[in-house]
Every structure is written in C-alpha cells, then in structure tokens.
C-alpha cells in the first residue's frame, strides 16, 4: 500500500476536513483576479441566501408544524409555534394504528427494509456487472450492454403497470420480493460502475496481478473492489434514495396495509385525512413526513464524502 494511502487512513476526521478545505481553496483561482466590481461577492452571497431560504422554508414549516395540534396546523400562523406543544403526543401516535389504516412506524420499518435490501443488492450487482462489462470481453457483451442501456431509458414508473401484470401471473403481488427485486436490478448502477471501473482501475494493474498468479476471484476481491468503493457508495446512495422515494410501484403492488412503505401509507392517510376528522391525521402526516426525511439527510451527511455526482456525467459524456 502506498504511503499516501496510509497517510490518508491515519489522519483524523478533522484533519481530513481541513485538508480538503485547503485543497479546495488552493485549486480555486483567487476571486480578486476576476476584476469584479466591489460588492459582487456580497450580492451573489445574498442570492445564495435567498435560494437557501426558498429551500429551507418548507422544511422549516414542517419542523414547526410537527409540534402543533390539528386545529393549530390550520388556524395558527404557519411559520411560528403555537401552544400546546403536541410533538410527543403525535410522535407516540405514530406507533399506533390510529384510524385502522395501519401504523406509521411499521411502514417506515418496511421502507427501511426495502431500501436496505434493494440498495445492498443493487450495489453488489452493479459491482459484479460493472466490473465484468468494463474489464472482460465476452461473447454478447455488447448486446447485453445494449439491453442495460435500453433499461436505463425505460423508467420504473412505466414498468410498474407491466410488472403488475407479470406479478399477477407469478403470484408476487403482496410479496416484498415483488418490491425489492425490481428495485435491485437498477440499470443505472451497473452503468455507473462500468464507467467508474473504466476510469479508475487500469488494466495493467489487473494484468500485473494475473502475472503474479492471483486467481480471478482474488483479483476482484483484493485489487478491484477496494478501488471501486467510492463508486459503489454513490450507487448505494442513489439506489437507497430511489427505493426510499418509490411510490408508484408499492402503490400498485401492495393491497395489504402492513406491507406499505411510508410513502404509500402517508398517501393513504392523506386521502382519508379529509374525511375522518376525529383521527387527527394531519399532525401525523406532518410529523411522519419529517421522520422520513431525517434518516435520508443523516445518511447523505455521513456518506457525503463518497458521493461522486460526477459519475453520472463521466459515463454519458464519453
């Protein structure tokens, strides 16, 4: 292992952040050189602040209103708190089956399971498939890859109805595999990994390992896989986020409330919220919505440094 890699591993989190910040600063051309009028930077910072407000306002609204009772959500001013502070009461209700539709945390747990399994599965598939397509020439490779590209063009929203028809025949309706399997075979991940392997794993490295007598399995596991980690993290994040957000497929697929993910469950609540006034579903919707956001934001914050948004480009630009 190179000394640089060792150094990377031993530096602390804070040191890393500091180094990244310094590198970013060094890479940028000093603003003074652009010959701008004074105040431009302040003006543009103000633009950023305005757009950040636009971004944060709905989320702020959600946080504030998750503390309110149903009456207050509608009657009090949307952007300020109103007593009584009802957050914990609502939160506790998320664990109960309030109006017979189902229990929110059961749905959220479903979402977590679907996303985790689909995310992990699609990452494994993308790792194997992407590596295979990028570094092996086998019969029909071009044809298979053409199929993958075709899969890329036809989004899951459209596949949902045809899938339903297939499922009706093979009895996969109301089965969690009906939800997980199609989420797992996301062609995007395979495509991204092929690009990533192409760019980041030199053929010579693999050839060198072969000359040293390593088996193909060992080369993949010990040589290629560690180099693929950042790309795989991006695929993992993308596919977890996609499954987490998926609405139409589970909506079509599941008729049993116990299997719903949070998105579909909340959609159902929203439909009923207007009719069944006593169930107080609106605070549950607001607080429940907030609960679906928090894990994703946390996940992105943790894995942010692996995020290779550029991957999406690298591929299609080549």
């Amino acid at each position, binding site marked *: 292992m190179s000394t640089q890699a060792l150094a990377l591993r031993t530096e602390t989190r804070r040191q890393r952040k500091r180094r990244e*910040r310094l590198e*970013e600063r060094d890479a*940028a*051309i000093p*603003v003074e050189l652009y010959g*701008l009028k004074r105040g431009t*930077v302040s003006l*543009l*910072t103000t*633009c*950023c602040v305005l757009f*950040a407000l*636009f*971004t944060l306002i*709905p989320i702020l609204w959600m946080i504030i*209103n998750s503390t309110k009772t149903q009456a207050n*959500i*509608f*009657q009090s001013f*949307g*952007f300020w708190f109103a007593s009584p502070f009802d957050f914990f009461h609502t939160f506790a209700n998320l664990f109960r089956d309030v109006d017979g539709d189902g229990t929110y945390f059961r749905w959220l747990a479903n979402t977590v399971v679907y996303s985790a399994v689909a995310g992990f599965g699609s990452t494994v*598939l993308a790792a*194997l498939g992407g*590596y*295979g397509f990028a570094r*092996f020439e*086998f019969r029909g490779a071009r044809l*298979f890859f053409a*199929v*993958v590209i075709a899969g890329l*063009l036809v*989004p899951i929203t*459209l*596949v949902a*109805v*045809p899938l*339903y*028809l*297939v499922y009706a025949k093979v009895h996969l309706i109301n089965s969690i595999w009906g939800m997980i399997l199609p989420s797992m075979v996301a062609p995007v991940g*395979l495509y991204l990994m092929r690009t990533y392997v192409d760019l980041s794993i030199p053929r010579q490295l693999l050839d060198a390992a072969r000359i040293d007598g390593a088996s*193909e399995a060992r080369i993949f596991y010990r040589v290629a896989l560690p180099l693929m980690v950042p790309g795989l993290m991006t695929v993992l994040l993308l596919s977890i986020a996609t499954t*987490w*957000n998926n*609405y*139409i497929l589970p909506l*079509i697929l599941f008729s049993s409330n116990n299997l719903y993910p949070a*998105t579909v469950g909340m959609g159902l609540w*929203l439909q009923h*919220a207007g009719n069944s006034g006593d169930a107080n579903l609106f605070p549950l*919707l607001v607080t429940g*919505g907030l609960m*679906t956001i928090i894990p*994703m*934001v946390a*996940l*992105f914050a943790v894995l942010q440094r692996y995020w290779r*948004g*550029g991957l999406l*480009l690298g591929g*299609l630009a080549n």
Partner: protein
Amino acid sequence: MIVFTLFMVVPLAYAIYESLYTTKLIGGTTFSGFANYATVLESGAFWGGVIRVVVFGVIQIPVMLAIAFFFATVFDLGLARFGRIFRAIFFIPFAVPIVVSALMWGFLFDPAYGPFNRVMNAVGFHNFNWLSASLMVPSIIIIAIWEWTGYNCIILYTALKSVPRDVVEAAILDDTPLWKIILRIKLPLVRPAIVMLVFINTIGALQLFIEPNILNNYQAGVITTTWTPVLDIYNTAISSGEYQLGAAMAVVLAFVIVAISVTSLAFRKSGRGVR
C-alpha cells in the same frame, strides 16, 4: 473462470428478467391485436395529458437549469461566501421523498389555510388559489424546481470543476471579462453535461405522477384522472382494471420516451462532430 461465468450469468439473468416482462406485456395485448393501441392513439385525453407534461417540462427544465447553472458557476468560481454550506443546503431536497415534498407544499399552497394563500390575500389578491385549475401547473413547477435544482446544481458544479484551470487563467491574463469566460469558455465545455441533464429531466417530466396525485387531496376536481399520462395509465390499469389498455398506454409512453432519448443522443453526437 468462476468469476467470469458469474459475470456472464448476472447480466444474462437481468436480460431474461427484462425480456420476461416485455413478452408478457405483448402476450397480454395480442389478444385484441392493436385495438388497444388504436384506442390509446385516438384518445384525446391521453394526448392532452402528454401535452400538459410537455408544457410543464418546457417551462420547468430551462428555468431550473438556468438557476442551477447560475449557482454552480457561483460556487465553482468561489463568488459567494460559505459556498460549501450553501451547496449542502441546496442538496437537501434531494433527500426528501417526493411524496413528502408534495405533501408539505400541499399544506403551504392549501386554498383555505395555507400560509402562501394567506400572504397573497394579505397583499390584496383576494381568493387567490395556488391550486386552482389555472395555477396548478405553475405550482407544480415551483415544487419541481424546489426538488431538483440542488441536484442539478451539484452535477453542473462537478462538471464545471473539471474545466482545466489553465484555460481560465489564460483568459484572465487576456483581460477577458468574467461573463465572457463563463458563457464563452465554461458553458460550451460543460455542454455535454447540460444535454444529459435536459435528457434526464425530460424523462422525469414525462412521468409526472406523484405531485398531482398527492395535490389532488388538497384541491378536489382540478386533477382529473387523465391529467398526466402516468396518472392516466395508473387510473386506467389499476383503478378501472383495464390492464391491457393501461399497458398499451405504458408502451406508447415508453416509445415517446425512447424517441426523445434517441433524438437527444443523436443531437449530442452531431454537436460533437461540429466541434
């Protein structure tokens, strides 16, 4: 060798899986020949939905990309303070499920209680309704811009970062004004990225479903069952149980999408040839 076969099997399994549903799909529709397709192609409501989402995309995508490109440039050139923090904030909506964002915007736009309508009433527009038939499309455009600008901005930012530094330095030494550097040097260099984003967002716009489906609960009567093509597919196939007809619609929409994709790929290739 084992690994090799594994690589063979995985794509194969995928291909079989893929072909499976296509054959079933066609198998399901061959009973009536092309009658379903004829119904879809003649359906005014279906094409009305297609036109609606096209209008939506034609407005939403350029506006969003302009905002995204503006901020990507600002971040790339370091023209604003706290760029890192703003980048993180702008990306947050990507982590919000679309159902949830439609849900909270629904509350914000709610005709009777929503804070935005209250503000409009206070400013003097009485009985202003963000979710009325005439304003539904613009409101969904606002929601879509909220959801996707940050994501597009980060991708453009990554693309701009890969523009070689010496090109920009040379331009600065020549006393090129900044707006020229941005529009004449940087913009052409990230053109492939922009074309790709237009392409991805167009496919997304054609599939518009969740936002209208959720907002329907706040304002009854505006979102009809055929408001967007995917709503039409969903309502035909699942709610009314006319599976074959819905499947035919899905195929037609898939064709529209593939046609757009192929056109845009051809467009990109020709663009490269010129340069």
